[in-house]
């Protein structure tokens, strides 16, 4: 498939990129690695009059440390994250999540900014325009008023399936956003609207410049586990990031985030509450995973039933917590 026509710009600064985006009033898109945007433009499921190439903007391609904050530029590629000497020890789940994305070719191109801002996906919507439009009435995501995935659904159930966001969220990451009104710091969770049809709470001219990760305490251990069909290429069916802060057998804090279960990453708040201020045991992890099962109802947008996906939430929350715990044990040995 070929790309449609579009105007093309190569700004050298973030400010210029923002003013180009703002000039086009929602009809221009930032282009980073292009691995999410270009297939969607080819399929005509995303429409853009203009592309603003962000790759020429300097200063967004490095990882650095400032006091207790790790700063990752939005244009750092997932391949670079996999190899970064900063993402070792208890930050290695970030490198593992980057490694879990797609294939080596995609990771060499894909950026962290693009990964966080990838569009939500749907079994129906992500077909070519020819297929979708000839067969179906416009759904919510195309500006219509029906959903083809969930019959009689009153909203869009497209899923956010980024692999890296849950780990960053479990670490309490913040993002530096540049817009026409200047810069602002947001919690990463604030950029997600939770709406399938318009997944971002950012305006069309906002750009993420940096991702700030508070360095976890030496007593924190994390893991990212991904359920996928094949060992490569595939998006997550369920992805779970867990960070546990421990003192001996005691869990002082727990942060658990899931991806691919809703239109935004989802926090397993009740599961976290079970683990907090409790002594570790296999039964405790079991109980937490059952809480996650109760509180999270995945959108059935992977070709699997909602029942099955809910079961997988239990399994993968348990695996993520066990992996974090075993990592702690391994670290002490």
């Amino acid at each position, binding site marked *: *498939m*070929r*790309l*449609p*026509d*579009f*105007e*093309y710009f*190569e700004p050298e600064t973030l400010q210029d990129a923002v003013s180009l985006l703002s000039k086009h009033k929602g009809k221009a898109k930032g*282009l980073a690695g*292009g*691995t999410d945007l*270009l*297939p969607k433009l*080819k*399929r005509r499921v995303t429409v853009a009059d203009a*592309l603003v*190439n962000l*790759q020429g903007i300097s200063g967004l391609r490095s990882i650095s440390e400032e006091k207790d904050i790790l700063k990752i530029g939005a244009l750092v590629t997932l*391949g670079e994250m996999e190899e970064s000497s900063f993402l070792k020890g208890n930050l290695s789940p970030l490198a593992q999540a980057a490694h879990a994305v*797609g*294939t*080596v*070719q*995609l990771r*060499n*191109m894909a950026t962290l900014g693009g990964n966080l801002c990838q569009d939500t996906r749907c079994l129906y919507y992500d077909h070519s325009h020819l297929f979708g439009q000839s067969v179906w009435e416009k759904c919510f995501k195309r500006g219509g008023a029906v959903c083809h995935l969930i019959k009689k659904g009153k909203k869009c159930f497209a899923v956010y399936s980024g692999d890296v966001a849950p780990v960053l969220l479990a670490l309490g990451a913040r993002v530096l956003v540049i817009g026409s009104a200047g810069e602002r710091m947001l919690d990463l969770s604030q950029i997600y609207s939770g709406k399938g049809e318009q997944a971002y709470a950012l305006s069309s001219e906002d750009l993420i410049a940096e991702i700030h990760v508070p360095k976890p305490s030496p007593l924190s251990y994390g893991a990212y586990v991904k359920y996928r069909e*094949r*060992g*490569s*290429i595939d998006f997550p069916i369920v992805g779970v990031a867990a960070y546990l802060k421990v003192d001996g057998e005691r869990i002082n804090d727990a942060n658990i985030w899931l991806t691919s279960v809703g239109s935004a990453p989802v926090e397993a708040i009740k599961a976290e509450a079970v683990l907090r201020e409790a002594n570790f045991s296999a039964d405790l992890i079991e109980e937490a995973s059952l809480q996650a099962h109760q509180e999270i109802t995945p959108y059935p947008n992977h070709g699997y039933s909602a029942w099955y996906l809910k079961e997988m939430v239990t399994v993968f929350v348990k695996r993520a917590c066990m992996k974090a715990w075993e990592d702690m044990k391994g670290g002490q040995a």
Partner: protein
Amino acid sequence: MKRLVELKVNGEAYEVAAAPKQTLLEVLRDELHLTGTKEGCGMGSCCACTVLIDGKPALSCLILAVTAKGKEITTIEGLSKGEGLHPLQQAFHEKGAVQCGYCTPGMIMTAKSFLDRNPDPTKDEVKEAISGNLCRCTGYKKIVEAILSVKQP
């Protein structure tokens, strides 16, 4: 509107008029007539279109040609010098790792970059390295054998 883009492909400099919507794959095949690189899905899912950008495997179907300026692009045509075959090409030929051949250029480019970084890999490492490159014919076994048989100089 087309614009002039300087591309460095297999060590040679080219100046091509390309529209922003043209992918690197389209420019390589249709403008430079380097048809070794193949288009499979065009969507990032098969890796048939793999070329090396600054030594790393990347998908030419998802790169705008205008964004590839100034980078070292290597295609399957750039592997061997003159008439001879590159050791990987030779190994694919000898081990029967080519059937229809459609996936072969992408497979070899991926393997080349992998062996440059990891000259003495295990079987599992080879499998992981080519796990994105889909092949409809061979069942991968002979491809893995061919790659393992090549010891980089």
